[in-house]
């Protein structure tokens, strides 16, 4: 394990590690200017900003392509390095439009942040700037502004090395070089927005996010993507108007540095306009709204009324909830209700086993594995869906409790299943989303608004068995309940709202936090 000294600080690195790796290892990546280096991509060595001085070498070297050797003495705070970086920054900027006021990247821009730290501050470029293409439509999700591009080649390397789809290239040479796709064909793979994330400037922006919020008006908090069983680690960006975007957070064990485009959209059902805001009781043509807790009490009443014959109470679970909730509801059913009629609703059996080779999985639930583990613990794993269907058909189900979807869009069989559920005398429907299909259910039905994964603390087990605990980040529908709370009401216990979101994430921070760091 070679040891070296960086800016006077001694550090031991893995054999083969570069000086840049050492900066990352010391958690000092912001102490070395760089654009083209990305830990998950090949080394390009083209931005020429990560200059370091190595004792005994008269020529400055780039940290990203220089392997640490034993006893190496490195610094990047000498005047020589500072001068090189200052001019390196300026070369990046001479043809850059400097249109930060209308640029979406402003506030999380590598150029801005690093200019503050390393900039020359006295621009001497007085010639005409190179004109390049603006507002280039790069497909369903990405827009390109070529003048802002600093040709770091991260996006090109991404489509070459990660997705291996090769849509992007750098065409022409010298200062006429531009990134793009062949003949403007769409950049249309399921990982395209990662190119926006890794773009250190505002050259690639997300069609979905652009012009919707200035980033310094957003807070962020750590969570996971609930879009499939991979459980990519993400940051959720929000303010009091709601959630605006998800971005991947690196986790080598789960998602590397990336997330898929489908997952990006999973913030949409979190927002109020897609949500069930109040409990809704419908019996025939009569519709009544009430606060969620009252709705839960009504549901508890229905369960109690059917409980005379425990067999007439059944529970359907989807893979959308946390371990803690499964444990609460299943144990409540077993112990308090006395029913073992607990069933697993597999929402899309045809694609359940599919995997695209990168991250996206056909099991579109964050916690199928946690659900199956809970059912196994409580001996309900052998209950088959056919048993439930038979019971419903025979009219023996008095009250059916359905812990339904948090994301309705991944339940293509929603209508079909509801038609079957409607054969129960009464249905308790737990969901975070509002749906006309559910509203139209003919049997007596109470819908209770549930909290989403960003509004509660809970543990999710991904496809590989990795358990990830996430914390409440914000409250979008504050009165909504968790499955555990519903279990408490059904059991007649006091509702412990211990994990109620405080309205901010664990990483509560000033709304005007700059230096969010595009790297």
């Amino acid at each position, binding site marked *: 394990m070679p040891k070296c000294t960086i800016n006077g600080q001694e550090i031991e690195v893995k054999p083969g590690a570069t000086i840049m790796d050492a900066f990352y290892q010391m958690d000092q990546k912001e102490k070395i200017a760089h654009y083209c280096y990305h830990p998950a991509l090949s080394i*390009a060595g083209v931005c020429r*900003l990560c200059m370091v001085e190595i004792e005994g070498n008269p020529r400055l070297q780039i940290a990203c392509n220089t392997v640490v050797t034993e006893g190496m003495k490195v610094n990047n705070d000498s005047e020589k390095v500072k001068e090189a970086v200052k001019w390196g920054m300026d*070369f990046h900027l001479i*043809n850059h439009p400097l249109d930060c006021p209308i640029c979406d990247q402003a506030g999380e821009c590598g150029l801005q942040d690093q200019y503050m730290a390393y900039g020359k501050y006295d621009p001497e470029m007085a010639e005409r700037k190179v004109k390049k293409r603006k507002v280039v439509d790069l497909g369903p999700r990405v827009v390109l502004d070529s003048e802002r591009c600093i040709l770091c*080649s991260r996006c090109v390397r991404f489509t070459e090395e990660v997705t291996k789809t090769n849509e992007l290239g750098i065409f022409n040479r*010298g200062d006429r070089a531009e990134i793009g796709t062949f003949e403007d064909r769409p950049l249309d793979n399921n990982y395209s927005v990662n190119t926006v994330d890794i773009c250190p400037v505002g050259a690639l922006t997300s069609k979905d996010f652009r012009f919707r919020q200035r980033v310094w008006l957003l807070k962020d908090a750590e969570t996971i993507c609930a879009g499939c069983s991979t459980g990519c680690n993400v940051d959720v960006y929000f303010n009091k108007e709601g959630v605006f975007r998800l971005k991947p957070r690196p986790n080598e064990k789960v998602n590397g540095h990336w997330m898929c485009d489908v997952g990006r959209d999973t913030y949409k059902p979190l927002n109020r306009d897609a949500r069930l805001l109040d409990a809704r009781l419908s019996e025939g043509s009569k519709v009544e709204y009430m606060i969620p807790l009252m709705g839960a009490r009504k549901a508890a009443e229905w369960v109690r009324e059917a409980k005379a014959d425990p067999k007439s109470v059944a529970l359907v679970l989807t893979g959308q909830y946390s371990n803690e909730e499964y444990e609460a509801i299943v144990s409540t059913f077993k112990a308090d209700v006395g029913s073992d009629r607990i069933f697993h609703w597999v929402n899309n059996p045809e694609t359940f086993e599919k995997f695209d080779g990168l991250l996206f999985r056909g099991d579109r639930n964050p916690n199928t594995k946690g659900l199956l583990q809970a059912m196994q613990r409580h001996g309900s794993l052998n209950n088959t869906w056919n048993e439930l269907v038979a019971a419903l058909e025979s009219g023996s189900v008095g009250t059916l409790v359905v812990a339904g979807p948090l994301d309705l869009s991944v339940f293509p069989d929603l209508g079909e299943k509801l038609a079957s559920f409607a054969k129960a005398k009464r249905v308790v429907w737990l969901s975070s989303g509002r749906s006309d299909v559910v509203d139209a259910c003919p049997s007596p039905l109470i819908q209770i608004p549930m909290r989403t994964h960003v509004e509660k603390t809970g543990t999710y087990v991904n496809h590989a068995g990795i358990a990830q605990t996430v914390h409440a980040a914000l409250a979008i529908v504050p009165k909504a309940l968790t499955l555990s709370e519903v279990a408490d009401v059904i059991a007649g216990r006091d509702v412990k709202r211990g994990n109620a979101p405080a309205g901010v994430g664990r990483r509560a921070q000033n709304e005007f936090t700059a230096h969010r760091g595009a790297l």
Partner: protein
Amino acid sequence: METKILSEHYHKPEFRALAGYKALGGYEMLAKALKMERQKIIDEVKASGLRGRGGAGFPTGVKWGFLPNNGEPRYLLCNADESEPGTFKDRKMIERAPHQLIEGMIISAYALGARKSYIYMRGEYTGPGRILRQAIDEAYAAGLLGGNILGSGFDLDLDLYMGAGAYICGEETGMISSLEGLKGQPKLKPPFPAVQGYLRKPTIVNNVETLASVVYVLRDGVAGYRAHGTEKSAGTKLFSVSGNVNRPGTYEVPLGYPLKDFIEQECGGLKPGRTLKAVVPGGSSAPVLTADEALRATLDYENLASLGSMLGSGAIIVIDDSNCMVDVLGTVSHFYWHESCGQCTPCREGTGWLHKIVDSILHGRGKPGDVDLLVKVADQMKGRTICALSDAAALPVISFVTKFRDEFEYYIREGRSKVTGKGPTDAQMHH
């Protein structure tokens, strides 16, 4: 006096074809080499002091010594991309003596243990390309290439690869990228080509003249080869001379030859009534010499380095007093702007910036301070990039504006040339 070692028979048309080349002693050294120990050939090349003739002047034998002995297949590539402005000697060599190069390559490949070899030639060289193709075919037909060459058991395949118009493919890793079917962008070093080059396999890249010289190192022996030139700049070298002289062309002289004699004797001096203003001694990227410096210079690596310039590819551009130095620098800075591959930021942006400043001056839009700014920008482009193109673009700018500062200041102040009295011409405007 010219000393014709490589070029002894260049004036004979029959030297181009295999029969004529053989009749004049060709391929005798190959036969000799194939009976030698490989290491012995490498040692001789090392001892001869032969240095790379493409521009960098790196000792050839030392470069060969960087090949690792790891049993991996290795490649010998010949750099015939010749694109440094002012340089045309490789083209002449291939036109006059294609078999000289082929013989040098077979010997070198044998010494290095390479079984596959390419000649990468710039795409514009259609004429020389046809001549070389024909010579390669002749060599194959005569059993000089292919399997079991001259019954030695040594196999070598040699192919010609034509580029498609990019100066940067003369940089050895740019050339490798191009040969691999990519954009001709130089690769990060390390790894160096000797360790990981073509297809990430050990690779030696040598210039046309360098490889041809190997034949004569073997023919004349170390002492014979070193009989010409200086201690550190051994042997003879082909110089490409162009510009304002009466007899431009390719001349072979021993290294260390006085530049003054060269211009006055070999090149027939300047046009009547003209005086020498400047000389670019080693291709467009070599810093320009003033007339005074040029008349003191000798044509070897050390002397030109001591004058702050370099021997480079041996391309000498003679500039007389009829030329406006602002205009001359205009075409040079245009060249580097046009040829920058665009991957490293300081070069991509710097070459454009330099070109625009010079162009503004030429169009009468120069600003006070532009001269200093040119030097400042050029200084910051040196030693900052993957390859040397950025330095190559910076060096002429610094030397031109430093040594001929008055011409630049005048142009900025008056909006016209101090030499011609004119502003930009139509032709320059089109450029």
